[in-house]
């Protein structure tokens, strides 16, 4: 499915789409602004925590509306995508989007690191957390891309956000005075298989949690999820026909 000749075309189409999308632009620009605001109002450490936990969501917002709208809108029935090239174009979108948003977040991370160095708070662990966050971001692109074969417009990203909201609300309601799930998550130690599986379910919808160093083991689950979503997308793309 790899067609490197399609990458420049895909990049030009995706670049224009990202720039033309008010939501993506707003999310991409508002995020660093909020990080800076938190850093000024509170501390660099708090701003860094916020950054590492939430920057994977920039990938999710950028991954909205990846496939179905292009198919239903008829834009793929174009001379640019003859001979099955539309399949490889949809596949290439994953990698172009991952590279584009990855480069943007790397720039933000470089600025955050420079800020940390300036105030003497930078830690090499931040690089590892950034790497885990990238993994979570790539997972979002893979998962949202797969969902986008079935869901129109931005509903692929919206569905994930709704699941995340439900998971967070569920966690809040589950809080008790005794040692509970959140404490296990905070310590990175789970007493039994049940709580591990439950946390694995949470990681599947909110992979951002793997940026916390103690939970890095669940990074393997995110990696497996990424591989699975790309595999499913590959199968979906291979079987795709433009019937409109």
């Amino acid at each position, binding site marked *: 499915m790899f067609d490197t000749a399609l990458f420049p*075309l895909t990049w030009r*189409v995706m670049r*224009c789409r990202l720039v033309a999308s008010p939501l993506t632009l707003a999310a991409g620009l508002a995020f660093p602004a909020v990080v800076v605001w938190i850093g000024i109002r509170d501390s660099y450490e708090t701003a860094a925590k916020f950054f590492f936990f939430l920057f994977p969501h920039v990938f999710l917002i950028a991954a909205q509306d990846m496939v179905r709208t292009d198919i239903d809108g008829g*834009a793929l029935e174009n*001379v*640019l995508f*003859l001979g*099955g*090239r539309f399949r490889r174009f949809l596949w290439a979108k994953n990698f172009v989007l991952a590279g584009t948003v990855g480069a943007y977040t790397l720039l933000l991370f470089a600025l955050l690191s420079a800020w940390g160095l300036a105030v003497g708070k930078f830690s090499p662990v931040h690089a590892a957390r950034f790497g885990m966050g990238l993994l979570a971001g790539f997972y979002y692109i893979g998962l949202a891309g797969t969902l986008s074969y079935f869901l129109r417009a931005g509903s692929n990203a919206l569905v994930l956000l709704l699941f995340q909201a439900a998971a967070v609300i569920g966690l809040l309601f589950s809080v008790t005075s005794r040692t509970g799930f959140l404490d296990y998550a905070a310590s990175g130690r789970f007493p039994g298989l049940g709580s591990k599986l439950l946390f694995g379910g949470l990681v599947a919808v909110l992979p951002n949690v793997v940026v916390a160093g103690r939970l890095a083991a669940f990074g393997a689950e995110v990696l497996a999820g990424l591989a699975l979503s790309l595999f499913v997308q590959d199968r979906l793309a291979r079987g795709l026909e433009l019937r409109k």
Partner: protein
Amino acid sequence: MIEAHRLSKHFGPVQALRDVSFKIRKGTITAMLGENGAGKTTTLKIILGFLRPDSGTVIVAPGRVGYIPDRPAYFTWLDGWTILGLSDGQPAGNGEDSGARILAVAADLLFDPALLRRRPGSYSAGNAKKFAYLQNLIARPDLLVVDEPYAALDPPSIKCVRDLFLKLRDAGTTLLLSSHMLAEMERIADGFIVLRGGTAIAHAGIKEWRLLRSARTAPDLESVFLHLTGS
């Protein structure tokens, strides 16, 4: 240029094509005719790789292929110049300035180049069709497949497109046109493929077609078509 052998295609319970076979020679204009739902667009899409046949094969000779759909659609966030720029990978290929080539082809099509600053989604249906011609013709295709070539075009544009088809054919381009405009097809086509209910019921070059016409004492293509399709 194109050789289709026993193409079949189902959409769920509907059999869209059944054992459709034909050959199209290089440097000719072939008209694909048929009633609504006869399988014309399905055949074109299989040739172009947008659909896969359930069985059968299509061989298209190597070369640059162009395609103009019945109702062209584009990425809504791209303007005309950007879309033409995306075709940079398949430019004129003879060292000709691409900007000059675009303006020359636009003039041939009576297409206002000022529209290129706007998004094709905002064009009228006729201008969207002409833009699709422009996008394809700047790349000098060896094979041009057109679904409803005159749909949405005004009479002067129809004449321009007809002249372009003849010019392209004389330059060695192969054209496959799917149309309901029988009189127009009769004026320019060298051969015909008639589909009915997903089956090719006639496939003839212009000489055979003339014989068929005289044998049936039919005055024009429309009469032959109506007789063949039992309409």
